């Protein structure tokens, strides 16, 4: 009879080692297995986090290795929280976050609804729709820069075709009023398919029998949508919002490529601003405090949200 791999491995273990292992408890063996992961987690995540928190109370600058490091207490935090420029970047981030999520949820859900109706060639269209999210954000940023180009950009010409305006009369990424919308549009184009896929998974998880029962109860399509579809897809939608919210709070590459944070600082999101402080101005202590504030904000908001999500799931 053929021996199992486990038996073969046990037989191949040298006797002294086998004797030592035989004496270990299940808990000890479990620790041996998870220890490498815990070590990596501590080294890569927890240690840098603690180090960052420590640096946030100092005036350390990485580009001044010869200078003494001074303990400044809460000064960095005070400066950040009273800096009007930083509040402006927070506003820009909030605008970006809210509008991308609203648009992506609405359009993503609508697309999922359409695809779920299983019309002819729906699989083909699903593939086409998900293409944007397979691209690199830097590539997307780059080609939207061309699309927004006033003289030759397809976007400007499309708007001109609809409105009759001169395509060169407006610049999506050069105008203070339009630039925040330019980044919202590009991000929505890229990430709506992601929301659509999650919604589609939600829609397909609803058993057909529930709709059939509703039909028997003579519930209208409208009523079926609001009382069956929406509540059952809601946990999926909330999950999509969570993912997109966290991702867009950290948004960097797409916006840097599109507007570089400009014009002025209209589209300078917190992540771009933080990078400037840390790696262009080299204010390491200050940037560490900034990073801690952002971490606490995202962590706090995400925790509240996850609790709400769990409550919805339990209903």
């Amino acid at each position, binding site marked *: 009879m053929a021996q199992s791999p486990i038996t073969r491995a046990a037989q191949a273990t040298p006797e002294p080692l086998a004797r030592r292992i035989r004496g270990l408890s299940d808990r000890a063996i479990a620790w041996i297995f998870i220890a490498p992961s815990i070590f990596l987690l501590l080294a890569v995540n927890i240690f840098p986090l603690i180090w960052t928190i420590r640096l946030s109370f100092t005036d350390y600058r990485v580009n001044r290795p*010869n200078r003494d490091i001074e303990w400044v207490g809460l000064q960095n935090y005070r400066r950040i929280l009273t800096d009007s420029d930083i509040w402006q970047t927070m506003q820009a981030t909030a605008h970006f976050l809210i509008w991308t999520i609203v648009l992506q949820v609405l359009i993503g859900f609508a697309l999922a609804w359409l695809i779920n109706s299983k019309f002819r060639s729906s699989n083909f269209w699903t593939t086409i729709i998900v293409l944007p999210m397979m691209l690199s954000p830097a590539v997307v940023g780059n080609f939207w820069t061309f699309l927004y180009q006033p003289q030759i950009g397809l976007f400007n010409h499309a708007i001109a075709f609809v409105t009759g305006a001169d395509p*060169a009369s407006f610049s999506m990424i050069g105008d203070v009023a339009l630039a925040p919308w330019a980044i919202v549009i590009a991000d929505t184009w890229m990430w709506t398919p992601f929301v659509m896929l999650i919604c589609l998974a939600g829609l397909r998880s609803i058993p057909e029998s529930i709709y059939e029962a509703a039909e028997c109860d003579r519930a209208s399509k409208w009523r079926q949508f609001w009382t069956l579809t929406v509540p059952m897809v809601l946990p999926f939608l909330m999950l999509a919002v969570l993912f997109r919210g966290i991702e867009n709070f950290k948004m960097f590459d797409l916006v840097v490529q599109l507007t570089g944070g400009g014009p002025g600082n209209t589209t300078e999101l917190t992540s771009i601003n933080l990078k400037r402080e840390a790696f262009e101005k080299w204010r390491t202590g200050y940037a560490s405090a900034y990073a801690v504030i952002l971490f606490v904000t995202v962590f706090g908001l995400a925790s509240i949200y996850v609790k709400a999500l769990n409550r919805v799931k339990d209903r």
Partner: protein
Amino acid sequence: MNINRMYCAAAALACVGATSAHADELTLCWAAWDPANALVELSKEFEAQSGHKMRFEFVPWPNFADRMLNELNSGGQLCDLMIGDSQWIGGSAENGHYVKLNDFFDKEGISMDDFIPATVTGYSEWPKNTPNYWALPAFGDVVGWTYRKDWFERPDLQAEFQTKHGRALDVPKTLEELKDIAQFFQGRDIDGTTVYGAAIYTERGSEGITMGVTNALYNFGFEYENPDKPYDLEGFVNSEGAVAGLEFYKALYDCCTPPGSSNWYMGEDIDAYKSGQVALQMNFAFIWPGVEADPKVGGGKSGYFPNPAGPGGHFAQLGGQGISVVSYSSKQDAALAYIKWFAQPEIQARWTAMGGASALRSVVEDPGFASSHPYAQAFLDSMAIVKDFWAEPSYAELLLAMQARVHNYVIAGSGTAKEALDGLVKDWVEIFEDEGKL
């Protein structure tokens, strides 16, 4: 016989061993642009002469400072030789990133008097105007202007301009004249294409708009500090002249640039010019050989001139870099050998001929230099009027503060010029206070 063969083999191995003991692989770090390609070609001669092998690490301009300053600040050993931007010299000297070259220059008989004085001050000295050298001037560069000579020479356009402005359509002598010309071309139909006035620097992320706006600010009276009292900024950075200069740059941006040019730097300006979109282009002189060689706008179709004067003076923004030995390099002797080779007059002459820009006086003061290329005279005239940005150790913060203030006003139209410059004084004072200089 066999013993003889063994002796031969041993001797050959000894020779190979001796060569490899002295041959190093040197890495030279610089920006990715045309002159860097010329340097690769030129350096082949050094490889052949010295036996050292050259490797190159070129980074595109928008990321150059980020990437290389990160490398220096982390004490990285990637680069043995660094052709770093002129403004890095203060920080690199004070933080020990560069090797001080005075002893080496003395030993090898390299004299800084042999180089254009402005480039020595700009690229090599820290503290400024003291004989402490951290780099050899490697690439002389300055902001100047390129214009469509073929358009300027059209009789119909000349007549129209003459009627409108009462003077010939020619190289502008002042910034106001330059604006008139840019306005004249803005939105004009030339050969069935709508063209625009001027491509100017407006880039926000790195150093673009600062490198552009200073060409207006200097010439309207802006000064970095009180000449008699270092770091005294009030009334110099935000003087009436400086405010007028900033207003001028905004007016030029508003009236006379292509739509969508809100984040343009060297590359975008070149593209706009070469594609026939603009009549004038602000850019560093390094692009001039490329323009002259371009099939569409080169070969006599373009002309070159220094930044025009303003009511407060006549200056141009210095560009260019010096070559330094990185103190973290383990191959400093080989790196110094490269600098010694590079400093030779015949190599400098060849450097210029291949598309580089030597700052050696014997090259640029050669009687044949001014007429050697259509842009050579403009280069000489421009190098005579240069002024540079701060080269303090805190230059990056100083630069970013200026980028933000100027971009906010010029491109985003936020506030007034006076508010922007008052804000800049506030930012810079705060930075110098943090540095302990105020």
